[in-house]
């Protein structure tokens, strides 16, 4: 799940300063779960913008805003309302915002900050576990990702700031390498910690990423 958070309302309003008429776009997937751009948030945004003197020409919740063809098709379905607007305010992740920008010649305004690929701990509580590094080490690290859970992403054991299993950057957090150590110990596989992991191949995460599935 892509975790996003709505930008503060004054910031959104400032971005819409030159555009009195606004069309709203939300997303039924991740942004709905994150409460940054679901039906409820789009409705609240419409109320807030109207109260701030903006004219909202219409709104749309796309099933997956990152789906470029679907985004284009859904926007065409609301053609008149979209045409009336000066800008499209998108409450979806950065991928969703760009589907909209690609599908419409109107000014696109992003109403969210996209934060990370997240696991859902419980309703409304998200945690980053994977950094999308393109070079998965989880088999070697007991299914716990040091690239993500360690703020320094160190690959060969804890840094000098670890003490009592805690992280130097966040004293509330358990050191990723302590977690790996505890799990490997319980599996009687501690010898895994003795192997040196070579420098990471960052060429595997060069931007922009592309994948085309061959048949």
């Amino acid at each position, binding site marked *: 799940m892509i975790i996003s958070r709505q930008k503060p309302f004054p910031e959104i309003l400032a971005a819409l300063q030159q555009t009195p008429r606004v069309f709203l776009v939300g997303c039924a997937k991740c942004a709905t779960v994150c409460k940054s751009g679901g039906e409820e948030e789009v409705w609240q945004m419409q109320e807030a913008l109207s109260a701030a003197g903006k004219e909202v020409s219409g709104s749309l919740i796309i099933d997956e805003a990152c789906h470029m063809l679907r985004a284009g098709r859904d926007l065409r379905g609301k053609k008149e309302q979209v045409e009336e607007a000066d800008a499209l305010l998108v409450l979806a992740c950065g991928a969703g915002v760009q589907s909209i920008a690609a599908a419409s010649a109107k000014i696109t305004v992003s109403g969210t900050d996209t934060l990370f690929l997240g696991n859902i701990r419980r309703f409304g509580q998200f945690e980053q576990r994977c950094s999308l590094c393109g070079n998965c080490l989880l088999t070697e690290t007991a299914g716990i990702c040091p690239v993500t859970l360690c703020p320094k992403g160190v690959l060969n054991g*804890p840094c000098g700031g*670890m003490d009592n*299993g805690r992280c130097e950057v966040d004293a509330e957090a358990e050191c990723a390498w302590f977690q790996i150590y505890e799990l490997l110990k319980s599996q009687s596989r501690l010898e895994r910690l003795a192997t040196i992991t070579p420098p990471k191949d960052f060429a595997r995460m060069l931007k922009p990423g592309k994948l085309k599935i061959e048949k």
Partner: protein
Amino acid sequence: MISLQEKLESGTFVITAEVSPPKGCDCSEFLGKSRALSGLIDAINVTDNQGANMRIAPLAAAAILVREGIEPILQLTCRDRNRLALQSDLLGAAALGITNILALTGDHISCGDHRTGKPVFDLDSVQLLQTITGLSTGQDLAGNALEGVPLFYAGAAAAPQAEPFALTLFKLEKKVAAGARFFQTQAIFEPQRLQAFCAAVRPTGVKVIAGIFLLKSAGMARFVNKNIPGLTIPAELIAELEAATDPLATGVEIARRLATECRSCCDGVHIMAMGREELIPEITKELRQ
């Protein structure tokens, strides 16, 4: 001049100290402190944007020491440089006559004065040590041949009091396997912990230089306990500082005592005098005997 490496390898007890290079380009105070120490200690650690606080490049500061005939230990962290920058700094160091390198991962950028910067951590300390070892055989990390083979004496950091020790030991052994020839430890407040540490790493053949930290007051000790990961100052030492009429003199006495107690089990001491470098001779006066 006998080098730090020659001293350690011949079994001479060494004393090193840390001097922070300036935030700015005026190195006069840095140089003054270093000159004052030069006859008393064997090498000076030049810190690398210590605590993630931006300062002059340690390569430049260390080169200034070499020019003065003072032997530096260049601290090099992975926080601010990717593998290209680390290697080019290492080659630059070799060209400037700097051989001692302390390879560190580095404090996180969120600890320092440029918190919005991008942390690099392209390599970790073990991989940096491997890189240094590779350069010393005439090859860069990509396997390309170098013009001129640099000579380095590489070391690493160790935290003997951090728990669980069994976990940190895995990493320490990797550091030695990757090319670390000496450890400079985090501050030691319980010499028996250093003894256990030395017994654990001794089979690898690595030299151990024990960190000695000058506690200037009970308040500072409490601050360290609260804010510096991996450092625990025992309550007895805090009480001793608390009861002192002259806390700084008592702090010097504690540091002197710890250094003397550590002497029997390690190969040297590394004094962190926290800006009071002029007190280092007082702390180390019994060690040379």
